[in-house]
């Protein structure tokens, strides 16, 4: 069961890093990723903290790449229109 022990400790490490980076993202980082977050309240930031902690690799990647808008969803119509031109 040594591999399982390793997995459990890796999980703890991920959660710990996520907790710190997620806090940074929720209170600072998201302002750059989504303009609507700039006027976000404290309550909003506390509420998104847990998922920032869980999804930190995704958000950090966007942050490092300098994304300044949330992605635009790719609907069937946008795809079909894109094929034509």
């Amino acid at each position, binding site marked *: *069961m040594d591999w399982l022990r390793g997995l459990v400790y890796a999980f703890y490490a991920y959660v710990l890093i996520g907790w710190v980076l997620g806090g940074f993202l929720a209170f600072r980082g998201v302002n750059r990723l*989504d303009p609507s977050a700039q*006027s976000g*309240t404290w309550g*909003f930031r506390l509420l998104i903290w*847990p*998922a920032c902690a869980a999804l930190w690799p995704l958000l950090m990647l966007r942050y490092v790449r300098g994304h300044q808008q949330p992605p635009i*969803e790719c*609907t*069937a119509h946008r795809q079909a229109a894109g094929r034509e031109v």
Partner: protein
Amino acid sequence: MSVGYGAVGWNRQKKRYDFFLVLGIALYLGAFMGAGAWLFPDVTAETLMIRAFGSAALILLHLILLVGPAARLDARFLPLLYNRRHMGVTMFLLALIHGSFSVLQFHAFGDMDPLLSLLTANTQWDSVSGFPFQQLGFVALIIFFLMAATSHDFWLVNLTAPVWKALHLGVYVAYGLVLAHVALGVLQAEQSPRLWLPLAFGFVLVASLHVIAGWRERACDREQPEEMGWVKVCSPQDIPNQRGVVVTVSGERVAVFRDDQRIMAVSNVCQHQNGPLGEGRIIDGMITCPWHGYQYLPENGCSPPPFTEKIPTFQVQIREGSIWVKSLPLPAGTAVEPAVWGGES
């Protein structure tokens, strides 16, 4: 356009729902533990807590799963649907308390790490009566955590709706895991098999309501037949002035609007959070999303300056008294000549 994020979008109605939700849960937990302590005096308080919170989470999970199809079948359930996220987060918290107490009682006092103990204490994967049901609950709890944690609108926008929806469809995986967790757990604890009955009843109710609602929905989402690249919608007088109707074309819904004599069509999906534009109205000459009020000019699908949102548009014609929409969408923000209808508005 931009609306700053707040914490919880409470209004008076939602507050009332949340009040009754919390009250109902408190009464249930109190009654469960009171009756349990009275009927089974030798069961410990921890065990009663574990069972009370676990069963409360399970009941709430059923309500959550029933609200979706119920609202599609009967609009009177819609207010419950709008409150479903709060129900989901509450359900997660109940399950979290149940799981935490279980870990505390069964795994925290050895010399092994509690999580490792939870995963390794029982590994009889080939046994039914001794199956490691706690691991199933753990995986379900992780799924519920991800759903509860991403329930804020911020995540809907930043993950995009398809990803968010896929994540939240995880509720069905988690539901299956929880059913197995409870069935196998009850089997192991040698509790009365009468508990199987409500469990089976709940499952049959959830499953059948989903099948019925899905079947009805499919009829309304059926693609309109095409004729030489055009799709017939309805006649102009069928659209109330400054309102829209919705048809499915090219794999997605299209909103066809009438503003006096002018007929215009755009993709039904709001760029903000995929609100149903066809259920909105034309206000000040602009299609206004019913959800948060983003606006688009119907003739080109663009938000008025300084905003930059754009949605795909469709060519429209009136032939023999009917509106026809070209089935191929134009790129987002393309200007289209409105079709002009000669009739009375």
